[in-house]
């Protein structure tokens, strides 16, 4: 039943209880078995019905939480007018660039901090200082160097996504087997070679879960970075429609972001699972 959270340490993903299910990669099963697909995602349907009911039965003011059917109608209009696609592309570019930077820099940083004490002492405090800051509060600072364009938004997404990757890589790499390290060193492997052959593989499971967290955060951050100032993007649309009181359309955009994040998560899980199978 589950492959969703399979970033196994050392072994291919298997259900914890030992029941022999979940052998196929998520993506393939998703395509091959339609009824299974429906069954699998029916909880979302239940949630959608609960939403519709909450708003139709006036449990929540329909002003703040419009019925899901109205949201769907607004979504179709947004697609037809082309607004969603145009704004989406510019948002996804920012999120992708920020996330790529975060994975590359954050992963390298985490591994280096784990193997080198000076690196840890130099970089650790800066990472720890910048991470817990609300990124939208940093906008006045980033604007000084990068203006209000793509640059400042990519920087904010990068800063926000980096720590999960860094922490994952750092904790994973620190957990790597010292004996393995020593034996690799004794066999003459040096520096980067050791890192790539010994430290990175053992850091990989936690690193990959960190990337998964970063992936989800990227979508939240891209919205919050675009909410403050923007000409386009999902966050711009959300702010603009919210200021208008067009909450149906605003929630259509919010759900679109969530759905793209969901798709990205599923694809990522499938890819990771494929990749980890090479280990055997």
């Amino acid at each position, binding site marked *: 039943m589950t492959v969703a959270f399979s970033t196994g340490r050392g072994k291919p993903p298997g259900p914890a209880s030992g029941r022999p299910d979940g052998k196929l990669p998520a993506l393939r099963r998703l395509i091959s078995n339609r009824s299974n697909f429906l069954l699998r995602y029916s909880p979302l349907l239940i949630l959608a019905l609960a939403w519709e009911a909450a708003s139709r039965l006036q449990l929540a*003011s329909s*002003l*703040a939480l419009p019925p899901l059917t109205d949201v769907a109608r*607004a979504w179709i*209009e*947004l697609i037809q007018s082309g607004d969603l696609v145009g704004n989406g592309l510019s948002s996804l*570019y920012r999120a*992708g*660039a920020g996330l*790529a*930077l975060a*994975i*590359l820099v954050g992963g390298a940083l985490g591994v280096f901090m784990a193997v080198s004490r000076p690196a840890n002492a130099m970089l650790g405090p800066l990472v720890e200082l910048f991470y817990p800051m609300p990124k939208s509060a940093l*906008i*006045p600072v980033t*604007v*000084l160097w990068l*203006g*209000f*364009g*793509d640059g400042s938004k*990519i920087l904010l997404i990068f800063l926000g996504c980096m720590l999960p990757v860094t922490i994952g890589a750092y904790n994973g790499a620190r957990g790597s087997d010292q004996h393995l390290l020593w034996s690799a060193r004794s066999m003459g492997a040096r520096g980067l070679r050791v890192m*790539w052959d010994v430290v*990175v*593989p053992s850091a*990989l499971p936690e690193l990959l879960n960190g990337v998964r967290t970063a992936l989800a955060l990227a979508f939240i951050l891209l919205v919050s970075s675009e*909410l*403050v*100032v*923007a*000409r386009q993007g999902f966050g*711009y649309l959300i*702010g*603009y*429609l*919210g*200021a*208008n*009181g*067009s*909450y149906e*359309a605003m929630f259509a955009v919010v759900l679109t972001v969530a759905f793209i994040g969901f798709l990205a998560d599923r694809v990522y899980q499938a890819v990771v699972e*494929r*990749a*980890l199978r*090479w*280990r055997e």
Partner: protein
Amino acid sequence: MRLAQTGLAAALVAALASALLGPGAACAADNPVKIRLSYVVPIANWASMLVEKKDLARHLGKSYQLEIVRFAGTPPMITALAAGELEIADLTYPTLPIAIQNAGMDDLRVIADEFQDGNAGFYSNEFMVLADGPIKKVEDLKGKAVAANAAGSAVDIAMRAMLRKHGLENRRDYTIVEAPFPTMRAMLAEKKVDLVPAVLPFSLDPDLRKVGRTLFDTKDAVGVSQFSMWIARKGFIEKNRAALTDMMEDSLRIVRWYLDPANHKEAMEICARIARQPAERFAWVFTSKDNYRDPDMMPDLAALQRNVDLTRDLGFIKASFDVNKFADLSVVQDAARRLK
């Protein structure tokens, strides 16, 4: 495993390269002056409407380029002005003195009107209570919670001024709670607060009219107010006077087109399109049911002076000043003369 790692690294490098080399390289020839104009609320702020009538902008693309940028509020606009990332900001009467005094930007100049409130024969923002609720007069608000969109906003100042007239002071006698305008009806209906501001278009919501009753309006509180206006920096005006005059001429042409009753139907359709709502909801736009918008885009500096003094009286700025020193209406006047 090795394959996976190499693949991961390669994919990342590729993503990074495309990210860095992607857009941003397209730098147009810098002949036309780039003018970035801010807005917060679609329809109410001219910027969102100007770009919908580009066909009337004769100089657009020739002497100037117009870029409209949405801001979530005025604070980032002040930062943007200071960083040279914005040429024209639409500030309200409390944020102008705040930018001049607290941000130290004494080169800011009022260059045009956006909209005013409380002019005879036009709409004035309302403040509403529950129709069948306990609040019958302003004094009844003692000990209650009232809603504002943001502390220190023009709406908030008008509300505080009215309550002060009736002997009530913030924190001592009542609490201010912040909420976005679109949720005000629910805040009132669900009794989270006892007084809400109702601004266009939310004040026209039939459901709000059903539950609510107008206790007072902005005109009762502060008289005429120069609610929102266009602001530019002195250096920019001097350096780009010709382009700015062209831009203002185009803006005036578009503003007058919108204000012309003959175009009302088309204007309603434009509003419907940008707000993604049915056109019949916009019967009020640019009529006497709307806030006053000057057809010459001339701000009311006398009203602005009173508004700034009031902002000081309520303690939001330290000292008042002569607003005439911070206005440069020559551009909008030159532009208006051309259209005669």
